């Protein structure tokens, strides 16, 4: 199976253009009315998936999200898949965010797609959709309603002049028991402000230009684990949890590309039953 690098970037542009007019309405009117939410999703489905049909994903995947966010700039989302269908890709869509398609996550041959966790910015009360695509290209969708506000305009820590100091620094935490051929959970942490272009610089009195992570590629030795295309919705200093199956002792490599054409690369040793970086 191959990693499908569909043209999500182009799709995002189209969505932005198509939805600009409705955004002003939905964000001010708090799209918490059912009909409005459904209309919004119908519009997004069309923009992202065109005429492809989407099946009810109950039993195939599950989305965990807090009903009310503790911090709108850092809303933990978890997608789990049951294993019923061979899932190759997950789309996360935060319906009422300025950029609704928050990320696409494409699993490679060394991935275990059973768990995926991210932290997102949520700008206003919204439905969040997780859409899984299986090997045959069938789409499955589940959703959660999240009450959060201000995650894009008022990110925590945006005032920190040191925000760029450790840019691109990475940390990896692995489960304590590492067995070859068995799924292994990994938590990847990346230092990046993920400026969304909505914060003002005090000195220049101009808005801080958007500076965010565009893609993350994770490989284990010669095998692909995860390809992420992301955008401004990823929280500051993103933390991503995923699972993979190490077939032998080796190196997990992470490559991060951001919107200023910075490229950050790190490799981490993965050794069976090592105490490398203990979590559970």
């Amino acid at each position, binding site marked *: 199976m191959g990693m499908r690098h569909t043209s999500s970037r182009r799709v995002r542009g189209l969505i932005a253009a198509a939805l600009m007019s409705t955004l002003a309405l939905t964000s001010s009117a708090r799209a918490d009315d059912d009909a409005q939410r459904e209309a919004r999703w119908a519009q997004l489905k069309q923009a992202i998936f065109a005429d492809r049909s989407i099946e009810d994903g109950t039993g195939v995947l599950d989305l965990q999200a807090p009903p009310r966010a503790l911090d709108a700039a850092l809303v933990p989302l978890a997608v789990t898949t049951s294993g019923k269908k061979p899932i190759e890709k997950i789309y996360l869509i935060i319906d009422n965010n300025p950029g609704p398609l928050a990320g696409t996550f494409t699993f490679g041959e060394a991935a275990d797609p059973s768990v995926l966790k991210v932290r997102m910015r949520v700008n206003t009360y919204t439905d969040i959709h997780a859409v899984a695509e299986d090997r045959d290209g069938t789409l499955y969708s589940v959703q959660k309603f999240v009450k959060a506000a201000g995650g894009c305009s008022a990110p925590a*820590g945006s005032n920190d002049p040191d925000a760029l100091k450790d840019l691109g620094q990475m940390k990896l935490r692995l489960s304590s028991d590492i067995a070859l051929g068995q799924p292994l959970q990994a938590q990847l*942490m990346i230092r990046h402000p993920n400026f969304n272009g909505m914060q003002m610089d005090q000195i220049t009195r101009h808005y801080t230009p958007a500076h965010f992570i565009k893609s993350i590629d994770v490989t284990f030795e010669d095998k692909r684990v995860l390809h992420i295309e992301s955008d401004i919705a990823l929280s500051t*200093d993103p933390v991503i949890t995923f699972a993979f199956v190490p077939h032998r002792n080796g190196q997990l490599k992470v490559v991060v590309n951001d919107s200023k054409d910075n490229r950050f690369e790190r490799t981490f040793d993965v050794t069976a039953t090592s105490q490398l970086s203990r979590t559970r």
Partner: protein
Amino acid sequence: MRAVPATAVKQPHTLTRRDALLGAVCCCCSPLWLRAATSSAETIDTEEIAPGIHVRRGLHEDATARNAGAIANIGFIIGSEAVAVIDPGGSLVDGERLRRRIRALTSRPIRFVLMTHVHPDHVFGAGAFLADEPAFVGHARLTHALSARGEYYRARLEELLGPGRAGPVVQPTMLVEARAQLDLGDRTVDVVAHPIAHTDNDLTALDLETRTLFASDLLFVERVPSLDGSLKGWLRELDRLTELDARTTVPGHGPTTVDLAAAVGSLKRYLETLLRETRKAITDGVQIEEAPELVGTAERTHWTLFDEYHGRNVTHAFKELEWE
């Protein structure tokens, strides 16, 4: 350094996108200021905690239409030449009531309005003092914080309080980098700009005459603290507060005056528990979404509004500590 008169510290005016945005806000609010958000009879009760120093106790509630955002401790110091307001209040309504209370006691000019940090319960009353043309005194980082959040706070507050009652976003006109002294005639107020603690733009003020400390939100009493800066930074600044030799202390929330050592002790217990138990959770592999249920729960009985804010504090602490 002595504070210069307000007119001399105003920054040169250039028309920028920001001004245009703020201008748009002002346009829709100004007719309402002209006729004031409150009736001329409305005022607030204050307590004279030291000669010439008056404090209004805030409610342990979240802002509602009913309380008009009057949830923080605010006050003022009357000198022989001028008055300094230390936090103008939680809304335009709150600020107007505070101003009437000041005018019931003195006709001296209101020359300084301190805005101790970006949070709306402390600063949205500033609009009530614009006609006095005081120096709006803020931490050097307050400008940025208000730029990033002010309009969002204003919109939310207006939703809660009703049209015209929230007040405009007022930017500081006198920025404090480290320290400043405000001259009120026969007395001087010593202002300290703190490194990141409760927020990244905290000010405290000490009246040197009576050694009365306005600790603002570096000190929460009874009401659960809200962490919006740095947990480790806050603990460091608490140690500094205790070295100030204050005779009387006004916390940002809680009674109008408290015993500084005891209040710092309780707050440090909370923050140190948060530090210790969040660190342990991270080491144990607990996830950020699970931590609020596990960390610091023994503190629940010590604070009001614990369930409303504690979870967010844990999340904030987790984010700060997971990179250690």
